[in-house]
């Protein structure tokens, strides 16, 4: 059975919402000094091995208020996607 979106304008993965959220974080939360950012290795694990990551290690919801972490996550996700296609 196909899952339906909770929002009439979005798809079953709430893609539109998360895209807007990502844009919002990138636009409103610059953090060039990387204050409160988790180690890049933690973000890499969030992409590659999320089962071994805790909310504490991510500094709770920090990513939702950090353009730098969001950008890095996007890059890591892209790299993973590319390595998946090339394999």
């Amino acid at each position, binding site marked *: 059975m196909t899952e339906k979106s909770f929002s009439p304008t979005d798809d079953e993965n709430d893609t539109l919402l*998360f895209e807007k959220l990502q844009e*919002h974080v990138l636009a409103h939360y610059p953090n060039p000094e990387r204050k409160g950012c988790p180690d890049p290795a933690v973000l890499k694990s*969030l992409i590659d091995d999320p*089962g071994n990551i805790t909310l504490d290690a991510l500094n*709770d919801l920090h990513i939702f208020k950090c353009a730098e972490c969001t950008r890095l996550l996007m890059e890591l*996700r892209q790299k993973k996607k590319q390595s998946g296609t090339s394999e």
Partner: protein
Amino acid sequence: MRSPSPSDLCWNVRFPPEQEWIEEPLRIAVGHLWERANHVARSQLGDEALAPEIIEAAIEKTVLHLQTGPPCGPDEVELLLERSFRQEMRRLRKANNRLIFVGSNQELTSGTAQNPHARIDSAIDLEGILRDVPSNVRFALLLRYSRSRWSEVAVVLGTTEAAIRLRCKRALDRIRKKLESENHET
């Protein structure tokens, strides 16, 4: 979307065969608590829509307790769920009463006062929106933020896509509402 039933709220809980006994008394206990939970959420937190989240958190705590102890009867399951529900309500009331001030008046520049529509002013306070959301929902939202599909999040959390989406629905609705209102303002 219709309101979740007590059975819906148990979706996220999975039992190994030796612990399947928990399921039936738990569903009955949730059924008994459901009306009152809605009433308490409305009267004490001002939002009946919070009841499912609170009950879900209480269910998780109760299940964790039952899974680590010996089998017990329906009355005890009901008492445990009731206790977990009260704990969750206390946690939420505390969270709602807590005011957080960040920075000092030294950091306020005249520009802030002169430009009330500065970019930072329109930033959504996601921490504020998600402050009273259970930690596993916060984690699920971060996971979804870092990947493209709910099905992938469900695999990581060892649950079903439907369950994880239902759990995150209210938080997503709040974020969606805020983003939409921000779009209207700008």
